[in-house]
């Protein structure tokens, strides 16, 4: 049924930590592996060993570069002499450097899921009990319109099966009584080596995922598309701050003796004094 439920009882979804994701693609392949033999038709690979290999994946990891305003090349093109000459303090933050952000993306299980309402056959639906957006492959005619409607590229038509595939939020894992309690999480979450993927109920303000979103300022993608994604992304923490440690003072200076660079005597005096105290 392609009408959206007004509110779902729970909003199960993923919270992805862009501060921690190392872009290893583990979640991509775990997802492929689980869903190749789980929910619905297998995820096919056309021309698997040929020039035009094309497979269905429900989760893909992009890599972006973010170039800060005022960035004029990486730090190494910043003249070292300049920094020294400017007499800036020792814990000066380096000039703006570009950042790399690895960016996993699967279905965001939107609350206002346009992919659901466009579906002519009723194959696409959003579950009322947990908000998971699914495709009932028995009803799908493979028109592809839902994939067009999704701003995020979260749906891929499987070319062999002729049906629409998308992230199922591992619905066949998270309630799976044949699995140990701790394994009732999506395959991508279970496998993520860096622990960058979190799963839970975003409708519950006290859930771990909701707390993470609140603490770290989690965001939804493309708010202007008004899809109200359930999945949230935790932005990278500020980078290249240079730390906030107090600058070091030479022992010789600290003891009131001025030492020329490389001169040993005052330093040895410090050593002797210090060793006395140990």
């Amino acid at each position, binding site marked *: 049924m392609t009408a959206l439920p007004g509110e779902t009882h729970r909003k199960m979804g993923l919270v992805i930590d862009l501060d921690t994701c*190392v872009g*290893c693609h583990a979640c991509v392949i775990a997802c*492929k592996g689980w869903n190749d033999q789980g929910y619905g038709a297998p995820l096919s690979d056309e021309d698997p*060993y040929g020039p035009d290999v094309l497979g269905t994946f429900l989760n893909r990891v992009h890599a972006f570069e973010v170039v800060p305003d005022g960035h004029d090349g990486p730090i*190494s093109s910043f003249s070292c002499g300049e920094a*020294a000459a400017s007499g800036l303090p020792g814990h000066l933050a380096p000039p703006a450097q570009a950042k790399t952000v690895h960016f996993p993306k699967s279905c965001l299980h939107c609350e206002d899921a346009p992919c659901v309402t466009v579906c002519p056959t009723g194959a696409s639906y959003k579950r009322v009990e947990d908000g998971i957006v699914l495709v009932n492959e028995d009803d799908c005619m493979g028109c592809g319109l839902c994939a067009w409607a999704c701003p995020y590229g979260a749906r891929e038509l499987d070319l062999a099966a002729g049906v629409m595939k998308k992230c199922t939020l591992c619905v066949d894992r998270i309630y799976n009584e044949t699995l140990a309690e701790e394994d009732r999480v999506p395959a991508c979450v279970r496998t993520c080596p860096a622990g960058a993927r979190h799963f839970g109920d975003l409708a519950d303000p006290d859930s771990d995922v909701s707390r993470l979103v609140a603490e770290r300022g989690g965001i939804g993608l493309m708010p202007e598309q008004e899809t109200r994604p359930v999945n949230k992304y935790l932005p990278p923490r500020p980078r*290249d701050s240079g*730390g906030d440690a107090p600058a070091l*003072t030479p022992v010789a200076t600290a003891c009131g003796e001025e030492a020329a660079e490389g001169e040993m005597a005052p330093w040895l005096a410090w050593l002797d004094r210090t060793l006395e105290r140990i």
Partner: protein
Amino acid sequence: MTPPYDDPPLDLNHRPGDRVAKTTCYMCACRCGIDVHLKEGRVTYIEGNRDHPVNRGVLCAKGSAGLKQVTAPSRLTSPMKRVGPRGSGQFEPITWEEALGIATDWLGPIRAKDPKRLAFFTGRDQSQSFTSFFAQQFGTPNYAAHGGFCSVNMAAAGIYTMGGAFWEFGQPDWERTELFLIFGVAEDHDSNPIKMGLGRLKARGARVIGVNPIRTGYNAVADDWVGITPGTDGLFILALVHELLKAGKIDLDYLARWTNAPVLVDAETGLLRRDDDGRQLVRDRVTGAIMPFDRHGVRPDLAARDGADRTVFQLLAERYLAPQYAPDAVAERCGVPAARIRAIAAEIADVAFNRTITVKQPWTDFRGEHHDEMVGRPVSFHAMRGLSAHANGFQTTRALHMLQILIGSVECPGGFRFKPPYPKPVEAHPTPHCKCQPDCPLNGPHLGFPRGPEDLALADDGSPARIDKAFSWENPMSVHGLMHMVISNAHAGDPYEIDTLFLYMANMAWNSSMNVPEVMHMLTDTREDGEYVIPRIIYADAYASEMVAYADLILPDTTYLERHDCISLLDRPISEAEAAADAIRWPVVEPDRDVRGFQSVLIDLANRLGLPGFVDGNGEGIYEDYADYILRHERRPGIGPLMGYRGNGDQTGRGHPNPDQLERYIAAGGFHLAHIPEEALYYKPWNKAYQDWAVGLGLYDKPQPYIFQLYCEPLRKFQRAAEGHGERQPPDHLRDRLQRCLDPLPIWYAPESVGGQASAAAEAAAYPIHALTQRPAAMYHSWGSQNAWLRQIHGANPLYVPDAVWQAEGFEDGDWARVRSPHGEIVVPVARQSALNAHTVWTWNAIGKRKGTWALDPAAPEATEGFLMNHLIGTLLPPKGDGHRWANSDPITGQAAWFDLRVSIEKVAPRALSEPQFPALPAPPRG
């Protein structure tokens, strides 16, 4: 609104298979535990084993894609013998009986006449303690695994300095560290543990600083990124040392107790002062007497003098306080502003000394002194090939260890920790052995740690005893051998000719060789009489790799789910800082082709050759196959390949062989753990409780506490030889370099200066850009491309170019470039990257494939667009006009200097094929 929500019924209790087999992953050397789900005997799904100490349930992309490896069409299907010219790829399937017959006919006479005419080298070998045993019993000195081209600098620098190394032999104290600096790491062998560790640091809010010319992966998530210019880390690290020393932010107590900083250095010889038993001497601060470092109650004095003799610490301070190591003096060369170097030094000092942690755990040190608590300096470091794969990598890595030690953060809470069997000082390692005689085993293990010139592997005439010239004056401390020199030396007949080259699991005709076209030539080159210069080549691979075409006899291996393996404490185990651990693989599916596990094949071969240790007095084989060897082999009485379930099944470490051992491992999930007692968890080299535990487990036979060697005496011994002291003398052309590079205290020298400084500057001007490779997390060297899932992620590789070069060359998206080095040129697609050192370009390693290999369509992007950087890298440096061809390797360890590559770059018209291209290889026949 409430339309009728009749959500379709779902099978929420789906099961991927009907049973689960727990074994060990082999998609890389991290060796995670896996749960293999099987349905009617077919692999349906692979996930991480939650109980496994290495990965605790997580699994990387390669690991999950393992099931595609087991069905890959590239799998070899039967033994083969070459029928066309070598290199043509023409083979005929043969039976195992014929294959083993041929091998025996080739090897038998060699052993009877001159065993060294067999060169047996193994690549990504996880059974080195077994393959080396075979080679030793055969009697050839010519054995090593791939360590020499991989990361021997890491291992050697670590063990010579502190009895343990980064690599996978130690780890940061992930739970306690507050500041983590990671140098030159893209993936490392400890792939999953590093990612898990970074995740834990992030969750705790600890800070991570990445030092790497390239900001991807671990360096992308690092809080701060230092985009250093390649090859200059030594300068950067020594500038940090300079700053810390100058500010007195060093752990004097730690240095005095646990290191050779207070040891007196003989002013005349530069050797450490020792007593008659060879124990290093210190001056006791309390009594003022000179005594051995390990005397009960001694308080070693860092500031001691005895005549002209001073302590290591004084020499060290004097050296690094010198202005040449000041941040301002190095900043330009490192590409890191001095202010940033100072800020990082300040941060290290702040965390180490202002955020000290104490663990309320009493312990007793080897001098018998009791301590109420464990004091930790929560700064930790990790490094890998970004430091080691340079010709100055040994000294750079030593510099980093020195930095760790100066702030007292090795083997303390929050610092860097060893994994059993480490810590293990040089003294506990063998020396190299090379004495070979007809029909005799070698006189000892091939590889070891030379203590000085007396341990070099030299023939009586002073020439190198080994085909790879390991442990010769060119690279005296080449503790892993030099696999990358074997083919060129064998081709040149230098130091001698060989009959048979026997390779296992190394794609030497492609991604593991430098200057690939030249290697292909050497493998196929013939003499005047039409014979091949390298007369016979045997190769064991599991897949249709590029190397297969260059062998005369192919021994096809099983895949990792089809055989027994053991990941042994005798070898490279999977221990954690808290526990010793080992593991097995076992056949969870039956091979559907005529292939055999290589280790079992080697046992069959050893039996046919009648090798001692493999056959009994009657010439009968002792071991049926590798599984049987794992169960029954004993290195020392009671010590075998696996530590678990020995004796009657209730003994760990020591105990007689137990026929049920493998079954017990399988039932336990494929691995075994031996936890280190609480009291022994830190300060392991000096902790009595740890030493006793290690002896109990059989890691060694008596306690062997030691102190860290900031001053590395073996280096000084080689230096002295170069100065003319001693009987064994280096050739004259090497004297200067030995003196310059084998400094007993860490130094930095320009990598390109190892072949003489004069031409280095000119070269730098002609080839101004550094060119690097990185491992992609989702690919393992050459084997990932045959995997239908992984090759979709990395099917081709662009050359990443920094903004400065991008703009200078006027590149645009979709452009191509010609990249030149003194050794060759390649033409490749380019892509832009801003978060990249301005003098550096790079690409993913080993994505490019030769047409027709790996069962890929010849039009596959891996073969058309994909490329190798290797074509640009030479095994030898360009001629310097001094009559010598210097190796492109570290002068101390022989480590292949992959990352010293320098190139020039020029825009060319876009095209469809990368260059060079080689003729397509035919698919091997299916037997």
